[in-house]
């Protein structure tokens, strides 16, 4: 466990230390000029906790693509080619085994089997079966480790999302990104260690709510909260100077403020004053680094083409995916991208087609882009929702139209990049995609795997809170998924 005293030792910092991850994209012009040599930025770092990482990390950063609402595994990755034979038959009791259902369908008189209406084909050298809805991702399957047997405890969105990101259904715990920020610190002093992004999603889809706790720091210090980079208004809150105030004014103000605050430090002796001086200087730097971050005019045509035409629309999935790469490139540790609208209870074929069209190219482009830049081997990319969807139709079933209710017993996630073996599949489900039949993987195992790739032993990463040694991966035993590790 980490004694609470260490909180005090670490509360002095926010952003990381060592500048940009890739030397080629340094921002010398930002570091020159008005404040070069001024800020004691180098001493105000946000280092890893002592003893971290526990082992040599394979990945330095994580991009977590959260498909919020629960994508249907049956229509994307979990191909059941014989299911068509059972079209409209009642789901056999031998499969359901009396498992609990959400009360949205538990009163249904019948549970008619709804085979996917979408075509599947094999792709890549690994021959992965992929739905026609994901033509772009299908091209990168050899980089992907698909997990077909993920399961979770919760059956409704709010608790399930909270579970995926904090290891418990009850609000109040730190989120994955804030754990990582807390443990590993940051690699940049120009940007936050943990960033949350929320792209737009198709307007006809059933978008569920998000909660700030999904990127919150729970009982960890507030500085580990994910900073939301916004697609409208200031990209970082309060980043823009007030009207009529320019950068030169701010420099003059900060110079004066620094002088007066240093006098206060001399008078009071409170070391927090020095931290505050440094944080004001970092704020000033942030005002330059964020616009640079979001300006994609320097991206090549080839790169932009990879992400597709939507990349030029701020807030689109494609532009957000590109932003994720740019963030990681600049040393951000965790990027959590939350794409809403995957909760298809009614007209699933229509909504899911839109969801996939909205995101597929951006997802695939991100993998390819990272790979081309030699960044994929040190960036872990995770894709998945908070649960899966039922094989039986919610509401009326036709060949063209059906809905699916929440299904926590098995769903698909995938990982790619740093620390992960590509082109493999892990776990299997029964003929109805109703229960895992091989290698079940709990969402806490997924989180343990993410931490493992980052060089963290999840069992040793605990923080004392309310009398418990709390860890991200919960009380029950969890373990990294060895089979998919490179």
């Amino acid at each position, binding site marked *: 466990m980490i004694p609470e005293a260490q909180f005090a030792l670490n509360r002095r910092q926010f952003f990381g230390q060592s500048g940009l991850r890739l030397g080629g994209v340094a921002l010398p012009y930002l570091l020159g000029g008005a404040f070069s040599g001024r800020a004691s930025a180098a001493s105000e770092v946000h280092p890893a906790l002592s003893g971290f990482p526990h082992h040599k990390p394979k990945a330095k950063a994580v991009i977590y693509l959260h498909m919020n609402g629960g994508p249907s595994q049956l229509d994307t990755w979990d191909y059941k080619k014989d299911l068509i034979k059972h079209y409209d038959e009642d789901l056999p009791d031998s499969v359901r085994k009396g498992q609990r259902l959400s009360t949205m369908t538990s009163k249904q008189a019948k549970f008619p089997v709804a085979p996917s209406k979408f075509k599947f084909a094999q792709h890549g050298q690994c021959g992965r079966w992929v739905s026609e809805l994901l033509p772009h991702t299908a091209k990168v399957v050899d980089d992907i480790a698909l997990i077909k047997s993920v399961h979770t405890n919760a059956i409704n969105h709010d608790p399930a999302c909270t579970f995926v990101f904090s290891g418990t259904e009850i609000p109040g715990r730190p989120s994955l990104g804030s754990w990582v920020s807390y443990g590993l610190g940051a690699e940049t002093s120009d940007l936050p260690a943990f960033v949350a992004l929320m792209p737009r999603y198709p307007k006809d889809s059933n978008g569920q709510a998000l909660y700030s706790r999904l990127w919150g720091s729970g009982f960890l210090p507030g500085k580990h909260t994910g900073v939301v980079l916004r697609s409208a208004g200031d990209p970082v809150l309060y980043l823009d100077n007030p009207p009529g105030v320019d950068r030169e004014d701010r420099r003059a103000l900060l110079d004066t403020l620094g002088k007066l605050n240093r006098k206060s430090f001399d008078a009071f002796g409170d070391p927090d004053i020095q931290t505050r001086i440094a944080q*004001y200087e970092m704020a000033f730097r942030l005002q330059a680094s964020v616009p640079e971050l979001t300006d994609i005019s320097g991206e090549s045509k080839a790169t932009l083409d990879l992400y597709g035409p939507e990349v030029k629309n701020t807030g689109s999935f494609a532009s957000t995916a590109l932003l994720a790469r740019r963030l990681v490139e600049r040393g951000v540790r965790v990027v959590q991208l939350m794409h809403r609208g995957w909760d298809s209870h009614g007209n699933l074929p229509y909504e899911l087609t839109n969801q996939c069209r909205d995101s597929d190219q951006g997802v695939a482009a991100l993998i390819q882009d990272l790979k081309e830049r030699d960044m994929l081997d040190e960036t872990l990319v995770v894709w998945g929702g908070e649960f899966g969807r039922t094989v039986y139709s919610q509401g009326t079933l036709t060949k063209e139209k059906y809905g699916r209710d929440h299904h926590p017993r098995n769903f698909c996630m995938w990982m790619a990049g740093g620390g992960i073996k590509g082109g493999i599949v892990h776990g299997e489900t029964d003929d109805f995609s109703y229960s895992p039949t091989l290698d079940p993987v709990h969402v806490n195992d997924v989180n343990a795997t993410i931490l493992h790739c980052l060089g963290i032993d999840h069992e040793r990463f605990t923080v004392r809170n309310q009398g418990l040694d709390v860890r991200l991966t919960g009380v029950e035993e969890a373990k990294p998924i060895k089979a998919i590790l490179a």
Partner: protein
Amino acid sequence: MTLHLPPICLAVLACATLPAAAAEPLSFNRDIRPILSEHCFSCHGVDSEHRKGGLRLDVPEAAYGEGKSGEIAIVPGKPEESEIWYRIATDDDDDVMPPTKIKKRLSDAEKQTLKRWIEGGAPYQKHWAFEVPKVGAAPAGGHAIDSYLGAAMEGGGLAPTAEADRSTQIRRVAFTLTGLPPSAEELDQFLGDREPGAYERMVDRYLASKHYGEEMARHWLDVARYADTHGMHLDNERQMYAYRDWVVGAFNRNLSFDQFTIEQVAGDLLPKPSVDQMVATGFNRCNITTGEGGTIPEEFIFRYAVERASTTAQTWLGLTASCAVCHDHKFDPITAKDFYSFYAFFHSNADPALDGNALLTNPSIKVTPPDYDAKIAAFTKRTADLQAKADAIGKEVASRYKDPGDSLVPSRVSEVEHVWFEDAFPAGSKVTTQGHPLAYSASPAPVFSGNASIKRGGPGIAQDFCENVAPPLVVPQGAKFFVHVYLDPADLPKEIMVQFFNNGWNHRVFWGQDVIPWGKAGTGERHRAGDLPGAGKWVRLELPAGKMNLAPGTPVTGYAFAVQGGTAYFDKMGMVGKSDPAGDPTRSFIVWRKAAAGKDTKGAPGDINAWLKEGPDKERTPEQLERLKIYYLQHVCAETKPRFAETAGAIAAVAKERSGYEASIPSTFVWRDLPKPRESFVMLRGAYDKPGEKVVPDTPAVLPPLKKADPDGRATRLDLANWLVSRENPLTARVTVNRFWQQVFGVGLVKSSHDLGTQGDLPSHPELLDWLAVWFQEEGWDVKKLMRMMVTSQAFRRASAAPAQNWKDDPENRLLARGPRIRLDAEQLRDSALFASGLLKMQMGGKGVKTYQPPNIWEPVGFRGSNTATYRRDNGDALYRRSIYTFLKRTAPAPFMANFDAPNREASCFRRERSNTPLQALQLLNDVQYFEAARGLATRMMASSTDGKERFAFAYRVVLSREPSEEEMQIVGAFFRKQLEKYRGAPAEADKAIKFGDSPPPAGVDVPELAAWTQVANLILNLDESIVRN
């Protein structure tokens, strides 16, 4: 007394597992329990389910006894005969304890400490916080707190700093007790009072301030997890701000803390609880709830009870009882059965599992003021009197009424005018406006008749319309509409239009160009009646109803006036129709009854509606018939209705007044139990669907027993509340004084203020904590007295400026050798900036307000169906209220709060972090709230004096309660001159800078100068000294 930790350990006081220096006598609680708790209890403690080898080390009887293996774990005085010493010391991987697979190892020092303890007879102590606090005599002389602290400080080797200067003292007190800086008057009064006792008098003034309650409540509301939304899924608004206001009021009237406790935990069970006491029970309705479809009700009923039980235990007992939800507590002596017995007190609230996403989820009450019943009775009487008057008129009118539908009455066909609009839309209809606000204009503006006309205009299409007119306006035979229109010659519209609603807005007529694109052209949906009438005069426009497809008998329930691209006045609108009274339901009672048969009559009272529906052939008693007829004559009959206009108008006015009064009274969530309590069980492994042993409400066995009001009956929450504040309870008073201490000094005497259990930190000054706890109870749980006691101590009054050694040796200031210096909380920061600006509005209480918030805080996370998906900012005073009244949406809290560590209130927060980040710097520099406040302060600076130095001094006094030094003036002065120069050269920039925010800058001001002073004020409000309680 001595500090319970050796001085060398000050820097790591938070870490409880410190070996005592070899020379010191060992204390079980200080030295041994932390080691056993950390390394042994999880397998050899309270938790029977996970206990290994049948061995318990948490109680002496078990530890000294023979174990399952036949070995004796601890033989007092003889380590070599004690099995645990062998297991600890051995190199044998199979025997060593803790087992090799456990990664936490015992250090050598810890091993030696255990050995010394066994050698010394292995004495046990009950966990300190479970013993009733006992107090010896306070150290002699001076303030009790200082006596205790002073003794400890001598041991700590740090010299106390001198008393802070007076301006620092008053600012510290003002923030601590009211969350605001001192006003100029408060400052002058204190600085001018040179008599002994000036400080205490100043403290008393702040304790008496109504803002004291606001500051105190803010801390309690973190504990109570109060917010304005449900917290899960849709996160819709909930209405329980009356609870927040109750807390403010309770602190202000200095409700004793024991009563404060009882009312919140069990106010509903008090004999004849007052509205106030019911409102207080909102404490345990503040928890987050869900309305998510698909939720399994049993699961959430269970969860809510767990949450409420845990929160209550933690708030008053400082115990992290929730560990025992799944299993016996591993460290604290709380078994799962203890937990579920406690939970049973909270398991029977009458609230549903799903909150329905409703503003009010029952049980709720109207928060009626004391004179509510009298007010309502007065309304009822006024209505009854008026109704009696109307009925008297009705009888008289009825006696003369001759029904034209009666075959005996001769027919009189005539032309009649029905006026639909005169002075206002029909009473009770829903009026909506698109374009500029609804404007009735009276003379000298053009008015055709009556007192007012309606003025309509604005760019593009603008309209005023009414809906839900009841009873409907019925189109008579051969009707022709007329409306009086006056076109503004200076702002001539392109088109004017009148529309009618009958199952849709499908009936329109217009004059002028065909530019309003509504309905199908050339049909009754969009009929052109001619060119625009002449401007600058009243013109009566007419058209037959037939062209608009309004057949005789059509009920019209709404109409609209629309204008495109100019201004028009509308007045007296209505219809002229032929009236054959013999067939007209608005003339003939008989015809009306026939027409109303078989359907519902809108607006009619229930019995009348039912009689009408049954048709005229159904036999009625003479009384019923008379009632029907009087209703008709009063509300329907065109001929007789005007006779009732006065009383009807008066009744409507009373009804409106009454509904306005009712609407002004909020409702709030309260606690009420189900008539029959739910059965409660130990839930195995914390699963909602795995009941184990049945339990009844009870308190944890390790604590003193509960006294039940009815010894043979089931324990009640009131029993529990009384037990919480009983003198036998060792925890509540300690937990409470510790939390107030934390509020005043920044860190609690027990740093883990949420946990006084065995895993919590040890108190830095245990004897002081106990003394305060006992004193607090003996003084009748008087919170103001306690606050006064703390802020009048020398420890609180000391200078926070201290030598480097002091900061280094005692970074958290646990010894209090220097005064507390802590960053202001989120609310204090915003409130003090507003205070300095002169913009702060001190109005207390009421619905949460929506102040400035950057765009896209709610929207990106909001659920489409949620009523908090879109942020609609308030205007005017609401922007400048104290932060405690800010609307708090749990899933997307206001960034100005969250950025400074305010919790999102999803769960209780007992101690806020005080972080220091660049995002905070950006907020304080750039957020409109702070920059507007800077301009407000700059405006006040300019008004204070014409002299620049005086202006600096004014700002320093307002913000820091002190005068600036000469050097500071020079530094700030240089900045001011630079900014002034810039803005003189760029007046447009200056203009922008002073117009940020809704409040207008003063008229006739030197704009570049105000802009430069605004920059200075922005600077001063960002000084470290300004954002810290020094």
